[in-house]
């Protein structure tokens, strides 16, 4: 043959591409922290000492770290529920609502004085939470899967319904409500339904263990089961999935319901482990934070572990920072948001790079890459 170059190979992603995709969240977080430092400096505080205070607040003592883990629990569980949706190309942003529904379920069973062993009481409470949350999630999931309603709209709207439904449930004369309380809330859950405290002097409960297990299990499901494979196929190419024989609607329904289930567990963990009562606004945005956690993790269940810990460390440390340096508490929320924005931003610029690669291909319909 002639001296024709060997053609028809693939483009090997450059080191830059690899580094960018692997380190993307870290680079984003770093940029977010730098931008946050700028804002802290603007408020007249040395950013370095503020961040040191924050670190101390999160990791300075076993108690501090226990606090981080407590805060991480609902984020881990809710975050992984959102993450599996992201893998399927679905934005399941109804975690807040599922948490309320789960909390009501867990609360109802938890409040009741049942003549059973604590472990049984706890399991029953969790089952009730799951049942409530899944039933709650069935509406939006069905609307998305079988009626083509945008899942973001459906799930967000249900969040508001859940919040006010909770409020109604804990007002007298509903049976759950604490009689004669000055603030509408449910009665306290029974001692047998409480999650055990793992470390004295803290409120560390086993919620984070449940969360870690959930992340690992869902990672396995996504990677190693036919169900997970279908989920990833759906996320990459819904049309192709349909052609390849996937029951796309059913798959969407299941994935959204898994998110609801996780949300329910997350709500139950908050009630049985920490709050011990159900009341309006007890979730306080944790459901939405779960979405941010999953986003930061790029939908990877194992990544959710890291990003949930990061968010909760920021929260826990933020309180200390605020006390020690006078930087306002809301600053932690700002930093969180900056980190998410930068991670998305880095992702965007990465996509641009890939697009440019792709453009070369699309424009000539087919560029045969040379591997030199």
């Amino acid at each position, binding site marked *: 043959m*002639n001296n*024709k*170059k060997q*053609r*028809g*190979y*693939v*483009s*090997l*992603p*450059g080191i830059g*591409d690899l580094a960018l995709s692997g380190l993307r969240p870290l680079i984003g977080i770093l940029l977010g922290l730098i931008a946050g430092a700028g804002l802290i400096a603007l408020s007249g505080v040395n950013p370095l000492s503020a961040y040191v205070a924050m670190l101390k607040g999160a990791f300075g003592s076993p108690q501090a770290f226990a606090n981080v883990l407590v805060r991480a629990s609902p984020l881990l569980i809710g975050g992984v529920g959102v993450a599996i949706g992201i893998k399927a190309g679905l934005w399941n942003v109804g975690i807040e609502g599922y948490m309320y529904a789960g909390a009501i379920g867990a609360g109802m069973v938890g409040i009741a004085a049942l003549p059973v062993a604590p472990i049984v009481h706890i399991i029953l409470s969790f089952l009730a939470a799951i049942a409530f949350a899944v039933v709650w999630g069935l509406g939006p999931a069905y609307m998305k899967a079988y009626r083509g309603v945008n899942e973001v709209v459906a799930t967000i709207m249900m969040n508001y319904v859940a919040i006010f439904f909770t409020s109604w449930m804990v007002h007298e004369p509903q049976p759950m409500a604490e009689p004669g309380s000055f603030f509408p809330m449910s009665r306290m859950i029974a001692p047998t339904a409480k999650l055990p405290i793992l470390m004295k002097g803290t409120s560390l409960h086993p919620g984070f263990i449940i969360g870690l297990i959930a992340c690992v299990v869902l990672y396995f499901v996504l*990677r*190693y*089961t*036919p169900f*997970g*494979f279908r989920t*990833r*196929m759906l996320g*990459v*190419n819904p*049309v*192709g*999935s*349909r*052609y*390849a*024989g996937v029951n796309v609607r059913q798959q969407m329904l299941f994935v959204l319901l898994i998110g609801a289930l996780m949300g329910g567990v997350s709500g139950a963990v908050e009630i049985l482990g920490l709050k011990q009562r159900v009341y309006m606004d007890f979730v306080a945005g944790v459901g939405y934070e779960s979405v941010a956690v999953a986003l930061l993790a790029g939908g990877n269940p194992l990544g959710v572990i890291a990003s949930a810990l990061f968010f909760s460390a920021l929260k826990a440390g933020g309180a200390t920072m605020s006390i020690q340096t006078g930087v306002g508490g809301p600053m932690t929320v700002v930093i969180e948001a900056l980190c998410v924005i930068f991670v998305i931003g880095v992702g965007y610029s990465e996509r641009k*790079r*890939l697009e*440019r*690669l*792709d*453009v*070369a*291909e699309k*424009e*000539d*319909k*087919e*560029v*045969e*890459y*040379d591997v030199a």
Partner: protein
Amino acid sequence: MTQNIEIAMRMEGITKRFPGVLANDRISLDCRKGEVLGLLGENGAGKTTLMNILYGLHQPDSGKIFIEGKEVKIESPAKAIELGIGMVHQHFKLVDTLTALENVILGIPSEHPMVLDLAPARKRFLSLCEEYDLYVDPTVETWRLSVGKQQWLEILKALYRDARLLVLDEPTAVLTPSEGEQLFKAIRKLTKEGRSVIFISHKFGEVLEITDRITVIRDGHVVGTVPTKEATYPELARMMVGRPVSMDRKPRPSATKIDPVLVMENVQANNDRGLPALKNINLTVKAGEIVGVAGVDGNGQLELAECIVGLRKRTGGSIRIQGHDVDRVMADPSFVGYIPADRQKVGLFLTLTVAENLVVKDYAKPPFTRRGVLRYQAIRQHANRLIKEYNIRTPSSEVQVVHLSGGNQQKVVVAREMSAQPPLVIASQATRGLDLGAVESVHNFLLKERNRGAAVLFISTELQEVMSLSDRIIVMFRGEIMGEMDGEAADINVIGQMMLGQVTEVVA
């Protein structure tokens, strides 16, 4: 250079590198005033990239561009338009929901900043339509226009901006032969006025017909420029591909089996807009034959394929595959092997790996799943076997298919669909966008399927490949089968007429 030749545009040493690809390697060419310059090259040779540089969509890594003798830097399409360059992309850049006229004036500042006065624009537009004999109704929303009319609209849009150099990227791909004639007339008129046209194509016939000079590009280099009068078909083919090319009919053993595999009776279906796309299609494909479906793009071929594979609902009629109703068969995707027209949208999962893409129909069956767990080792082994068998060029089975070239992406689809040895194969525009080598291997795979005894339905808008590959040929026009003929004895002129809906008798 003689004095009386005026150069409208000159590019010197243009180099453009994309990550991993050298798209243009020191390309120099010029286009004279009043001429049609043909830019000939295979897909992927770098033609479009070069023109996108000219239109300011890409910046060259090095090299210079001169417009009418002056060096210019074209940093945006706006600048290109200002310099009198007009471009008609292969994929039109029209806003579907705007009217034809609105699309034309889009981006041109109105004389009165607060008022949109369309009357003068309409007048000018209609006079352009008349002048170039390219009539498009200015009030109609562009999505209602045929692809051919949309292209004219793109040309009119460029002329409205007074383009003196018009770049047409594969303009005839979407046209019927008569629309093509009209386009060529308009091009001749343009050059008579002293405007220049760069005509990008990979089809020899039309390049030889319309151009004055031809520049051939291969692998990002200019292979040469020849005056069209002196150019010959074999020489151009050799320049373009780098070796002699044959386009003859593929030899094959005669068909032995006669069992009908696919039987369609009175099939009707709508297109995406809910308009009838298939009208009473009756078609039988037997085992061991390739039935070619010819026709201009958009005459129901896509809907035909989608009905058979179950991606589109019929509004009437029946489809049977080996005697089974198609709606039942679809539950078992191994019945039909489908090579879709849009491989990236239907056939592939771009960010899954090659190995994963090869099992998207069978992942849940053993040996790929055992006891509910995916066995990646088996999946990889399967992939490595197919990579070898179908000569898929990839560094490993663990690479995402998005990184493969188009030809190799198509081979992934072919390998998956054919490896199950389905009784029926539907190939819909299976070679679109592939270079000649990949086209040939797809042809060979299909022929192999036929010889194995599969019934093959081969849908293509490239007449040449339909004629070289088919045992029987049917022609579709506006959702109907215009006629059928033997592949051996087919006459290109008869097919051409049928593609325009002019012949309805069956030449069986």
